């Protein structure tokens, strides 16, 4: 059974590219274009991993991350933060809030896929 991935970004083209990459890697993919939609999707069916953009309307990535970590049922959900703000503070903040990894845009497609695979492998 393949892992379920949720791609969250307000940039449609970025969502499109990530969706393509994840599907190609053999995962089941759902998408959301803002924070609220992401939480709704997770509530509907918790994914194994969330690719989560930070700068979004209606709840940003940090808030979504916090909400996931606050929910005991979702403890197994892996989170990779995606951000176009490449400063070190942003990275630390994301990790402190409970994200498992952190990727800076623009990213290497290969690296994204590798990181996702690694995380899911760790989780078993």
């Amino acid at each position: 059974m393949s892992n379920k991935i949720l791609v969250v970004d307000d940039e449609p083209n970025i969502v499109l590219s990530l969706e393509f990459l994840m599907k190609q890697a053999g995962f089941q993919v759902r998408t959301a274009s803002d924070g609220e939609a992401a939480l709704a999707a997770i509530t509907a069916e918790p994914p194994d991993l969330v690719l989560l953009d930070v700068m979004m309307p209606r709840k940003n990535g940090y808030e979504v991350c916090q909400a996931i970590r606050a929910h005991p049922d979702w403890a197994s959900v892996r989170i990779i933060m995606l951000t176009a703000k490449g400063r070190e503070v942003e990275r630390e903040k994301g990790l402190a809030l409970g994200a498992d990894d952190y990727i800076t845009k623009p990213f290497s497609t290969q690296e994204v896929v590798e990181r996702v695979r690694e995380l899911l492998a760790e989780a078993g």
Partner: protein
Amino acid sequence: MMGDGIIIASALAYMGLLFGIAYYGDQRADAGRSIIANPYIYTLSLAIYCTAWTFYGSVGLAAVSGVDFLPVYLGPTLMAVLFWFVLRRIVRITKVHRITSIADFIGSRYGKSGLLAGMVTLIVMLGILPYISIQLKAIAASFSLLRQYPEVSRLAISTQHPVWMDTTFFVALVLIVFTILFGTRHIDNTERHEGMVAAVAFESMFKLLAFMLVGVVVTFMLFDGPGDLFQHAAEHPDLAPLLRFEVVPGGYGGWLSLTFLSMMAFLFLPRQFQVLVVENVNEAHIRKAIWLFPLYLFAINLFVLPIALGGRLMFNNGDVDADTFVLALPMAEHMPMLALLVFLGGLSAAASMIMFETVTLSTMVCNDLVMPILLRANPRWLAGQTDLSGLLLGIRRVGIVILILLGYLYFRFVSESYALVTSGLVSFAAAAQFAPPILIGLFWKRANRRGALIGLSGGFLVWAYTLLLPAMARSGWIGTDFVDTGLLGLELLKPYALFGLKNLDPYMHSVFWSMLLNIGGLVFGSMLSQPDPLEQVQGSQFVDILKRERHDGDSLLWRGVVETAELYDLLSRFLGPQRATEAFDRYAHDHGGYPLQADSRLIHYTERLLAGAIGAASARVMISSIVMGEVLSIEEVMTILDESTQVLEYSRRLEQKSGELEAASAELREANNRLRELDRLKDEFISTVTHELRTPLTSIRAFSEILLANPDMEVEQRSKFLSIIVKESERLTRLINQVLDMAKIDSGRIEWHMDEIDLRTLIQDAINSTSQLFCDKAVALHEELGDAPVIIDGDHDRLTQVIINLLSNAVKFCPEQGGKVTIRLQPSSNRWRIEVIDNGPGIASDQHKLIFEKFHQVSNAHAGKPKGTGLGLPISQRIVEYHNGRIWVESETGKGAMFIVELPGTL
């Protein structure tokens, strides 16, 4: 005959009136509502200078020697000119150091020297006796004359009666009673007598009016005006020379010395010092007195010559004493009321002088003579007393009794044979001895105690030898041999021709030698000896009085330790518990409480209060008796002084500088804040721009890599991905351009090319540039642009940019099907209005303002369609605003949006 009863009753009634005024003045002063706190009362009080000498004596002198009476008034007038330079300093010093008298002043200046203060007091006592005696004589003489009314005769006041039958003696007794009543009701720590000053001001008015009334009567009733009077005098063989200014007995040297003497006496006679300095309420009053007092002198001298001439013409030579003309003329004319008024005026002038002088003197005697002796002789007994204010009052009262009685004795045994003016000048010459120590001490820091002691004793001895002793000799008290042949038969020691200096009038002669010794002694004595620390402190404080804002230099000298309670005990012993408590409360109020262990400031405060009651020197002794501590060395004091003056000067400059710096640093701070805010905005801007640049770049890179990694991708998908790459690249380009635009506009570096442009053509061009967009999305465009050109001033390219931006936004937000955009150009009052209307989703009203902010975007998620840059509208807004126009949006969610641009321009 005028009944004795009437005269005595009016005199007592008049004195009662003065007492009432004084009493009221004191009441008001105690209530804190002073009646003397104005320059007019101050000026009038100075007129205590005009005594019986002026009232009777001027006429007497004028009758014999014409205008010779004038120097005595010229002096004060000249001194008034110097008030601002000299008197103001003295007043300031007196206030700061709580000085109570002229003796206290000189003592304080020279290191709070008790010896010097005592010496000044002694000189004043001796020097003032002739002056008091002539006042008594004037009262007695005028009384004796008036009771003969209407008989006018020359009568010498007989001193042949035994004392108990002598009118003058009773006059003296009455004055003693009134003086004690007036002047020693309580001990104050400032030694001011507001009530007495008020009374003096009143009597100054009164004597002026009485004198002028006589003048008017003589000039206009006895004669037909001044012209007639002078005409008569000019025809009189004896009087003609008086009018020609030919009779100047002492020569011009005499005039000079008289002017000098009266200048000094005006300032340094004890009562003058009291009214001018100690009783001064406000330094500003001096300013008015400078011209007002000479005016008073002018008024009171106006009729001197007319009365003198009138008297000479009316009474045959020798019939009537010229000193009594003022009174004799109304009597001879049978004007009893006027005569009585004149008597009261003269009484008033004489009595006020005696009372004020003796009150002042008794304070000096008490503070500077008796107390120091008591302190020295029996400090233990003094320390045992709980309340000494009664003792102080007692000493002063006894002082008053003794002084007036001494004045009486001098009158009885010495001055009887002299005219008023002659005796008075002896006193003036004594007062002039204080000029060098005070005036030089005001301006020369190095003047020290030893110099002052040498100078003052030298001057005093010369004065006594050349003026006092000869006067006594002439009265037969001592042999006249030394006057005629010189002491021990030495020619050089003749009192009127010392060291062979002949042919000067006695006053000029005395002034010359006494001033020479006095000034010389002061200068050389000071230069040849070292001052002790306290002298240096005081000297520097006095000289620098106007430069200093704070006056705590000498408080530095107290370095010892004492319990506050002990200080309080000491103070209450001299001021009484009530005043002491008040004083300490005031200190606590001003300084936020007082320490248990008194610090130097509190000790100094107590010392000054004490100085007000018993004089600076005694206060110093009392305080040092309870303060255990060390005296500073001269080096320490010099250092402190030098530092404190330098520090003061520095701090004044620093204050000025720091004011400037403060302003500058406030500006800097503001600029800095502005910079920091700009820096923060720039940071934010860069961070946002980075984010905005990375976003399209992310898509471009991702799809490029995807395409690269999947060469066998289906064509349809490949071209979709490629077109995304292209669009995102376009977005990136646009973004970079707009960021640069924005930066240029914000930094003001953008170049504007303002010109006359046709708005209609411009819109047409913009439509043409965007026609492809409309075509692609099949959006219908309605143009309502009118027919005529619309000429305005503007930048063609920038405005085109605005319209293109609005049109592309409109297209972007139009629905996929049935998109419709309307563009309209129409006048609106005196502006041109461009409307761009779409039928898209509309904009919620809370977004209407936000969409004009940088990088704010209305979310519009749609794959394949890149979002805007978030800079189009902010840039448009800045361009429009540069043209003095306005851009805004009117829209409701779901009902399309209308963007409106209004530009100024006439139809």
